[in-house]
């Protein structure tokens, strides 16, 4: 690796000094609040009761994992939303990246236009789609009625299944572009010589995609998927504006139910406990993900 090639002697304090600005900031802005909210998660701090609180031990954690069926249900919902979203974002993103890599003129501007949804905040995306889905003022229903495709109104949230489909659709609209950009970048870093060599061996079209592009793109895909996975566990803005977790509890995600505990029930301690459970879960998930990845690499080697 290149890093090893740095032969010049360095002063011992330098690495630390260079990293210190962010270390200091993180220490102040993250470590203290994290420690504080960890402490809070063992108490019963409730905004509507007042600033005082008492120690309650692990009661919040026990309640969350055993007695709060709604929270457990929201873990399930989150998984159901994340799964198809990741798959679709990867497939559509890859498709778009491949298409874009085939066109010459106009590529930058088209890439930029396609990338716009990913730069919009979840609240904005949700607002835009609320106005697409809306029964009375929604563009989709309006257009469908005008074209005679839709009888009266189509309800995008009429059943648990369709609601999940609608949320996944918006999520895919919102974040596919991120995957597309990352994959396009990955595609462009594959040296042309490899394809030329492949062609000489008779690998063209699908075969070259299967034997050259895909294996070399694997790492990029994994990075992209992992970032999306981490961000999706925080899925909140879309739910907040589009469905508020409904109908029933169909689209309540973990991040959203944490918000409800804190900001609607004012139980800040409970919300803190819930967020620690989420972080723990996500961390475990990521570690497993990385571990599987490493084992596979070792096998391949």
């Amino acid at each position, binding site marked *: 690796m290149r890093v090893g090639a740095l032969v010049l002697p360095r002063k011992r304090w330098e690495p630390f000094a260079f990293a210190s600005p962010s270390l200091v900031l993180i220490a102040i802005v993250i470590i203290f609040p994290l420690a504080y909210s960890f402490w809070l998660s063992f108490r019963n701090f409730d905004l509507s009761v007042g600033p005082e609180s008492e120690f309650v031990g692990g009661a919040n954690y026990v309640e969350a994992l055993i007695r709060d069926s*709604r929270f457990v249900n929201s873990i399930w919902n989150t998984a159901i939303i994340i799964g198809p979203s990741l798959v679709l974002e990867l497939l559509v993103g890859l498709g778009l990246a491949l298409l874009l890599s085939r066109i010459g003129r106009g590529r930058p501007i088209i890439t930029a236009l396609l990338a716009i949804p990913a730069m919009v905040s979840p609240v904005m995306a949700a607002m835009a789609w609320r106005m697409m889905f809306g*029964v009375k003022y929604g563009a989709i229903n309006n257009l469908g009625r005008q074209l005679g495709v839709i009888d009266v109104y189509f309800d995008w949230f009429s059943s648990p299944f369709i609601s999940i489909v609608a949320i996944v659709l918006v999520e895919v609209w919102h974040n596919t572009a991120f995957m597309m950009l990352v994959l396009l970048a990955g595609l462009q870093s594959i040296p042309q010589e490899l394809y030329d060599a492949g062609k000489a061996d008779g690998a063209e079209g699908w075969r070259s995609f299967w034997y050259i592009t895909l294996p070399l793109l694997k790492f990029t895909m994994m990075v992209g998927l992992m970032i999306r996975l981490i961000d999706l566990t925080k899925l909140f803005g879309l739910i907040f504006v589009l469905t508020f977790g*409904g109908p029933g509890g169909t689209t309540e995600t973990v991040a959203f139910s944490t918000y409800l505990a804190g*900001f609607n029930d004012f139980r800040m301690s409970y919300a803190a406990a819930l967020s620690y459970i989420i972080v723990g879960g996500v961390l475990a998930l990521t570690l497993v993900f990385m571990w599987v990845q490493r084992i596979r690499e070792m096998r391949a080697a």
Partner: protein
Amino acid sequence: MRKLAILAVVLMVIALAAWLGLPVAEVKAARPYEGTTIRAVVNAEYVKYSLSLVEPAIYDKLGIKVETEVIPLDPYVAKTLLEFNSGKSPWDLVMFGPSFMPDYGRHLEPLQPWIEKLKLDFAMDDIPDVYKKLMLRHEGKIVSMPYDGDVHIMFWNKAAFERADNKKKFKAKHGYDLAPPKTWKQWDDQAAFFHGWGWDGTDRKLFGAGASLKGNNYSYYWWRPRFFAYGGQYFDAGMKPLINGPAGVRALEEMVKTIQYYPPGVLLFESEEPKTMLIKGEVPMLFSWTSTGKRVGNEKESLIIGKAGFGIVPGAEIDGKIVHRPDLTPGRSMAVSKYSSKKEATMKVLELISDPEQSLKIVMDPKTIMDPWRNSHFKAPAFRKAFPGADEYLDAILKTFPHVVPDPILPGASEYMRKLSFEITEALAKRKSPKEALDSAAAEWNKVTERRGRDKQKALWSEKMSEMKSVGIEYHPDWAQKAK
């Protein structure tokens, strides 16, 4: 030379000061608080808009400017309580939902001492009883004034009910005359009857009735008038939830049956959607906030202007008498923060925005969704002429007020309501049976009560219960059977 110059300058300054001072002094008499700016906090842009309607008057009469901060509705309570808990607040005038009085009350300034000190007149006799008795006080002291009436009335499209063909068909099918529903039974019959065809004589596919059933409390407000009409009450004297008793289950079962006659998407409807469907002539009837009436009467968008009927929300027939239990939702009140450094000026502003004349401006404006709340609003000649049918509309509100039911005004009200609303939507989305849903809501309610201290809640509730009794609301276990 130099002395002369100094003298000249001094003289000039004095002259200038005199010249400037005169008009200032004059204005000062008219605008006693000239130069004061107070800060208000409200929970939506449309509330800020409504305040802006009276800001000129506040400045003209008092010389006070109002700077309004908007915090989005959903995190509003949490954010304001967070600020108050720190023992300070950046705001002088505070908007809040009176149903959350137990959470807010201790941060608000009692009005009585200021009424005496500044000779304020809040025209208390002009406020409906239910507000005066239940919604304005914390620990017995008045701390707030209403801002938004927030009650439900029923609206209907006369085209549906008066068409001869419809009347004939309905009579043939149900054996009684078609008329705007008086009971929930009639409402359900009619929703079923109207759904799916052009009851206005066209060949459009129209809907049976409108409703707002989203899980953030809407579903609860659409369940409650049935529940109370069937004799329900939130808790018994021992804080045991009564919501999963026969009244609650019957109410929810009926809703689950009728939801198929509502427009698609109703499970996520907030207030706006069904209102629009009503004024576009797509639903024949709807009960919702009274502000709907202003849209019904807006000639620019309403298709049912002059053809709309207004009345009290349906009820239940108990022993030959119909009992109506329409909603009084959290509402909006205004109060002065205990931590304000400009209490006097803010009290004056509170007096002015809630005085009959100024508050009328707010509730009459077609763009605000603030509902009328003063007795004089209902009788105001200008309001009665505001749009065709305004007379009937205001009479309906007047008739509604004596019957309205408030929220469970207890510590944790927000959580009780939200948990129940959620479970109701679970049943409406057919993920649970009505009984199951209400049972788990009751279990959640018990958890909240335990967490907040059962004895403390019990003491506060017995107070509330007697207050509710004083306006005629109590538990009738036998009504759920009797109600027709």
